[in-house]
């Protein structure tokens, strides 16, 4: 086939996917930006209001609170997931059947839906019928089974507990792959030089895995910044509006209060923030040498 014809055939193969992305990603994205400048509502009415929605977002205390709360959630959970995932990866890198079983069990909750796992933890943490309260009581840790969801801080920790359980295997698997990419010869050379186990972890494993650690952290950060399911199910944004995350507040405005225009403006703000984080991810991935 002539090269020109081959090019054309290639485009035909790519066209359906491109058309899909144009229709269901690019076009809605443009719509979103346009909508953010109107007072569009599911109840009708769509007038151009310029930057008003953005000015309103700037003065919206609940939105600021939601942004701060999402940042707090991200700052709390990311180090737990990364350090915990790395330690589990060190464990999972050992030989042996028991270790392989541990690895499989830790990864198990990753396949479960966040919705299912959040509801599962609602049951486990319930102060009346939940087994966690009973267990803590029987172990003598607490006098009364704790009530988790009446207090924003406690509710946050309950959510963190459930999400860590669900996703810690994700970090473990990625870190494990990073550890296994480091050659056996490097390890042996370090042992020859008299480096102990933790010295090797500190001076060889970690530096050689810098890229993996960075990328895994960024994936985890983006995921946390978009948190919705776990808070919708576990805290319902409460008490009051103290545990609304950014996505939750957007959902609340767009689909509960029917303020689509305002919700769109909030979405654009969130989108820009996520793009900045993802941009850092790509830059870092390009600049960091592959090990």
């Amino acid at each position: 086939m002539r090269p020109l014809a081959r090019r054309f055939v290639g485009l035909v193969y790519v066209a359906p996917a491109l058309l899909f992305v144009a229709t269901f990603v690019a076009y809605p994205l443009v719509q979103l930006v346009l909508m953010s400048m109107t007072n569009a509502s599911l109840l009708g009415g769509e007038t151009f209001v310029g930057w008003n929605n953005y000015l309103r977002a700037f003065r919206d205390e609940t939105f600021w609170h939601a942004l701060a709360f999402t940042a707090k959630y991200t700052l709390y959970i990311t180090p737990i997931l990364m350090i915990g995932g790395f330690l589990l990866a060190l464990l999972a890198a050992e030989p042996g059947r028991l270790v392989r079983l541990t690895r499989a069990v830790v990864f198990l909750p990753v396949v479960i839906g966040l919705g299912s796992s959040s509801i599962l933890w609602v049951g486990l943490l319930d102060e009346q019928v939940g087994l966690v309260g009973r267990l803590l009581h029987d172990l003598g840790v607490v006098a009364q089974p704790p009530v988790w969801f009446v207090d924003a801080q406690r509710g946050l920790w309950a959510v963190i507990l459930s999400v860590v359980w669900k996703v810690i295997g994700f970090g473990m698997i990625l870190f494990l792959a990073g550890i296994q990419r480091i050659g056996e010869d490097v390890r042996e050379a370090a042992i020859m030089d008299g480096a102990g186990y933790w010295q090797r972890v500190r001076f060889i494993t970690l530096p050689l895995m810098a890229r993996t650690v960075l990328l895994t952290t960024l994936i985890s950060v983006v995921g946390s910044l978009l948190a919705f399911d776990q808070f919708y199910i576990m805290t319902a944004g409460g008490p009051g509006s103290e545990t609304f995350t950014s996505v939750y507040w957007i959902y609340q405005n767009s689909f509960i209060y029917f303020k689509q225009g305002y919700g769109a403006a909030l979405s654009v703000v969130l989108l820009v923030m996520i793009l900045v984080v993802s941009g850092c991810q790509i830059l870092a991935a390009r600049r960091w040498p592959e090990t």
Partner: protein
Amino acid sequence: MSATIAPRLSDRAPLGLAVTCLVVIALMLFPLVATFLSSIKTAAEASAVPPHYLPSALSIENYAKVFQYQAGLGTYLFNSFMVAFLTIVLCLVLAVPAGYGLARFKIPARESIFLILLAGMMVPYQALLTPLYLMFSTLGLANTHLGLAVVHTVLQLPFSVYVMRSSFEAVPRELEEAAVIDGCNSFQILWRILLPLARPALVTLVLFAFVASWNEFIGALIFMGKETRFTVPIMLVGVRQGHFGAVDWGALQAGIVVSMLPCLAIYLLLHKHYVAGFLSGAIK
């Protein structure tokens, strides 16, 4: 020297390692085991205060109740399976040719096209839900399986394209040259030579599309507003909210178990594919 510098943890502290493993396994399995055990208690015992660790009698009462919840569990399972099936079909139909085109043809601006197809990874689909909702309302796709499947395809297409492209690129070109001499056209080459060789990638694509669609929450919550169109996770939220504040805990536990089963089964059966897919998709 080897006495002081053990090469591995397992040589230095085998007992400590084993104990750590057992503790980790116990912590990770406790929530699953506790939920499963609660689900086979009698309905009365499942709501006991304080809760019992182990069921005193086995019962399928909770499962029977959840099967009859509102429109019936069958309806919700059908909705979830149907949406997942359509998502898989859409991802295959779009990503297989796209991966082939990108891997084997000198398309103008090839890498830019590839980046556009991966853009869904950077643009969080949560931000697109409002415009998509309005668009689907006018197209008649609101409250339909196909509509939600389109949303799930937006979510899953970048990974699918990526997996298909890299797997086609890994096939040596010599295999195709003979077919070209035999007069095969490009579609026949894809169908007869590349696809059979790319079977592991296809399994990964299908697996991930299924799990993502089955588990997806906020899209299903927004797009399936009608009770009879709820997917399983949305039904669970309904069970959890209960009737007039009274939650049927037993039915809830049974529902959770049912919702987790397909994904757990996939993981146990196709564990290697699943982990390999994770590694190829997450870090490039």
